[in-house]
């Protein structure tokens, strides 16, 4: 979807250090205009998955430059599709341990329908398009996570239902 906007929408941060949801929420709440009626946030965490008991955490690799560029396109598409006030995406990289925060998506809008939809849209597209790769780490070895078919299928929803 081509964008006619000359200005990029929202803010994107790729970083190793953890983030504070309270801080990010407060920033979204301050807002750019006074017509914020809804704020929706999502946080993704490192969970213990698979059968192995010796999972120690997860390593996140990314393609510097392309990740920001790709996420910006996704945010711009969300802003064209819904009426949004502001949006923040933060994705951590590097070595993380179980239960750590990986990703944050926050969006402010006048109405909840736009906020909910935009938040989910950004997460669904981030998972299928943004160049990050996860590697599960165990006590003595590690293994790259495989991309999931279900993530590709979730994208269909956004083409079929143009709201």
């Amino acid at each position: 979807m081509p964008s006619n906007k000359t200005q990029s929408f929202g803010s994107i941060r790729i970083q190793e250090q953890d983030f504070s949801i309270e801080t990010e929420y407060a920033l979204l709440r301050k807002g750019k205009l006074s017509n914020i009626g809804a704020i929706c946030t999502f946080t993704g965490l490192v969970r213990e998955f698979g059968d192995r008991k010796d999972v120690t955490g997860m390593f996140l690799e990314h393609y510097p430059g392309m990740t920001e560029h790709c996420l910006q396109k996704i945010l711009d598409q969300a802003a064209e599709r819904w009426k949004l006030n502001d949006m923040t995406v933060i994705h951590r990289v590097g070595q993380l341990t179980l239960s750590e925060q990986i990703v944050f998506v926050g969006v402010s809008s006048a109405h909840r329908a736009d906020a909910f939809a935009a938040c989910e849209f950004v997460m669904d597209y981030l998972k299928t398009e943004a160049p990050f790769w996860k590697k599960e780490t165990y006590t003595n070895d590690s293994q790259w996570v495989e991309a999931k078919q279900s993530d590709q299928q979730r994208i269909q929803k956004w083409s079929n239902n143009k709201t």
Partner: protein
Amino acid sequence: MNILFFASLRELLETDSEQWLDLKGAQTAGDILQQLKQRGEPWVSALSNEQLIISVNQEVSNLNTSISLGDELAFFPPVTGG
């Protein structure tokens, strides 16, 4: 031309990047891929994966995408962020 490799592909090839000063006649991303495969193993197996993704100047592309010397190419497996 800068060629980058990421994730499991980077590990298989034991390199994350290389620089080419000469395209040796290559005109498309597919031509570059062919030249890399001419190196034998592990290049042939690693780059024959049908799920391999190719990007040119940080945009997802395909084998037919034209390339020039100043471009940045990258090869990587399906993404798993978020």
